[in-house]
């Protein structure tokens, strides 16, 4: 008889995906800012644009970090328990 092994994956694997995305975001942002500084027209507007983008990014990253810090990332996901995620209690409004 073949038994499916009960595999446990820690949920911090999601963080690797997020980290890879953040690396992509950082590289693209820096490249974009370089373009603006290199080819943009000198003036107050240019600095304002870069400040707004950087400020928005800092707010979004800070908000994401605070949200993500609330979770226990060491919790393992058991593939055998995966079926319980489709529990009807997850959709109380439906």
């Amino acid at each position, binding site marked *: 008889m073949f038994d499916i092994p009960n595999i446990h994956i820690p*949920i911090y694997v*999601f*963080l690797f*995906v*997020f980290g890879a*995305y953040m690396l992509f*975001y950082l590289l*693209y*942002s820096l*490249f*974009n800012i370089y*373009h*603006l*500084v*290199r*080819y*943009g*027209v*000198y003036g107050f507007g*240019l600095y304002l*644009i870069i400040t707004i*983008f950087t400020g*928005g*990014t800092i707010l*979004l*990253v800070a*908000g*994401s970090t605070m*949200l*993500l810090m609330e*979770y*226990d*990332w060491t*919790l393992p*996901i058991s593939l055998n328990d995966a079926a319980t*995620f489709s529990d009807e*209690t*997850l*959709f*109380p*409004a*439906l």
Partner: protein
Amino acid sequence: MMRLDHLPNQRPDEHVILFLRRHWFALLAIGSAFFLLLSIPLAIGFYFEKTVADWLAHPVIGPFLAIIGSIYFLSIWLVAFLEFTDYYLDTWIITNERIINIEQEGLFNRTASELDLAAVQDTTAEIHGILQTIFTYGQVYVQTAGEKGRFHFKNIDDPEHVKELITRLVEEDKRRLSSLGAVAQGKVKSVVK
């Protein structure tokens, strides 16, 4: 960084007459798309507040949802900024001696061209459609004798005024060159980076 008082290859007595970007309607389109993409998930989250709160409180679905949400909001912020950069770096500069056309296509393609006013043969302004008529924006085409001699000012404010200005500057430049006894041998120069 480019300075309008110190243009690339600036000639003696050359000064900027007009500095153009696309009409603000292009910015409105970027802003509208950004706020739409921002508000749809927020509105859904607000409408299904209890369900979303339950999902976020779940030990496994919560972190997954938080990461997906973070990536989504960061992405629309980044894409909006990339689109804005494309708008911001697309510029046309009209001086008393030449027209400079700088076009940014995505992050990795940039074209800078210049055209002597004396080489301009014909200028055309076009306004098409309801939106362009209401907000008075459209296209200006500058035709020269050369093979690559067609400059396209895309979606600029008040194209009729720009056309008249270019026509007047071309006449003045030709008169200036005639008075100097020079033969106008202008041509399009293009540099692709």
